[in-house]
């Protein structure tokens, strides 16, 4: 797994998991209603907008992105 060490910005990739897995039990509700939308739908909308940003942030500061190289494999 050495090809994933020293790439700390990859931690941003946890954000979509927090939004769509970890948080789901807490956001599965109708209230509070925001701009007429029930809360679960608001949460999903936020998630859809935030996730691409998180993945983009992961690529900033990723040395393999800067080098445009694929990860090496453990076997050939």
């Amino acid at each position, binding site marked *: 797994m050495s090809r994933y060490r020293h790439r700390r910005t990859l931690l941003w990739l946890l954000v979509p998991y927090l939004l769509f897995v970890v948080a789901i039990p807490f956001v599965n509700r109708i209230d509070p209603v925001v701009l007429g939308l029930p809360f*679960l739908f608001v949460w999903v909308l936020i998630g859809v907008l935030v996730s691409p940003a998180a993945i983009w942030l992961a690529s900033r500061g990723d040395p393999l992105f800067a080098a445009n190289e694929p990860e090496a494999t453990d076997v050939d």
Partner: protein
Amino acid sequence: MSTDATVAVAIFAVGMVGTIALGILAVRGRDTDLAEWSVGSRTFGVLLTWVLLAGENYTSFSYLGASGWAYGYGAPILYLVGYMATGYCMVYLFCPMIWGYAKRHGLISVSDIIAHRFRSPAFGALVAIVATIALLPYIQLQIQGMGLVVSAISYGHIGLKTAFVIGFVVTVGFVLISGLRGSAWVSVLKDALVILTILFLALYLPLHLFGGYGELFSRIRETKAQWLTLPGHDSPGLGVGWFMSTCVLNAVTFTVFPSFVAGYLGSKDANTIRRNSAFLPMYSLLLLVPMMLGLAALFVVPKLETSDLALLTMVTRELPGWLVGLVGVAGALSAIVPMAVFMLCIGTMWGKSVLGLGRDDPARTKRMSQLVVFVSGLVALAGALALPNALVRLSVLSYEGIAQLVPAVVGGLLWRRMTTAGALAGIVVGEAIVVPLALGGHDPLLGINAGLIGLLANVLVNVAVSRAWPAADAGGGRFRRSAEVRHEPAGTLQ
């Protein structure tokens, strides 16, 4: 025929002829060798990779099933945008690595990657067969989806079965000749039409029918509140646990889903895939529209017999013929593009991994692949015409069945000590858990996606077997160059 119907059918006909022409012209002036036909010579930039991968996510299911689920169940359909977000994280992490491995060794499909990694053409052939069983129902679903779209937008003037045949002819018409590049260019047309029509519907319909989204949702809150949270209205156990486990399972499945792999193997470099993994989750915004409109249909066309027609029934009732025609072309292309890539993908897997058993004769492989493309389309068409439900029942298995290939493909490349026996044992145990649960109606099991349960068992068995019976010299000379391996006899799978 009414004026609206005539206009809609005429626009649809022009769209289909244009599609075949665009698909065929896409490869004008290029070599038509195996690498070009199967993976576009690995030259696609961000745009073509984007439309190909988006085509995988935005199929005719988005028009039919997404609005149909929203209409029938409500909130559970949101899983579709959830797993897309988590899925693209996995794409960022693992797909450039798989792409790099395939490029170094000239591999063109998942089965080809497995055959090479485990030095076992027989293992590759087995994977090709498993993947085909998973993909065929999807082709049939798309043909049937196309039938529903076309008969709806022609106001019933084009019959279901005629529409099935049109879908088959148009798809085969370009994919045999122009392969992945043709599919990508047809995707460009498809995406342009989908984005335009969906944005229009998103803005126009709720405003026209309810006065806005706030009004729509306040009506749902008053009378249909069950639809607004998990597990939704009358759903088969699609609760919070199912939502969470499905967002985890489907995300890892993205990386190896055979037709998705075909899409990203065509990329020209690693960053094309990484950039797309940031752009593509935004496409989910478009997926939210048919879901909202499915909810709107609860009030506009209540008591539909086929919930899948929730969106299209509203469209034909509320919009002029020319717009219905455009929606029809967009919906039909949303069936044709994934169908083309599914068929291409089955063709390339069989041509090289099953019928060729790893033999290195690209010209012959391509001819075999084209034959299999045609046959697989024919099988799906026959299924749609004769047994509309039998094959489709298998589609509940597709994602969860394909998920069992993740440890062998992704894990196999990350962990050199994984043995053929370990990978194979893992897949067998995983499928043995998933298949009976899914076909027996026990999925989700105790609120958890059955595919995830299978995947966990799969990984445990894989690691245990690989460690208990390690390959003799796993650390050193076991891995040779691809050129040498091709001369090995078939059947190293023991």
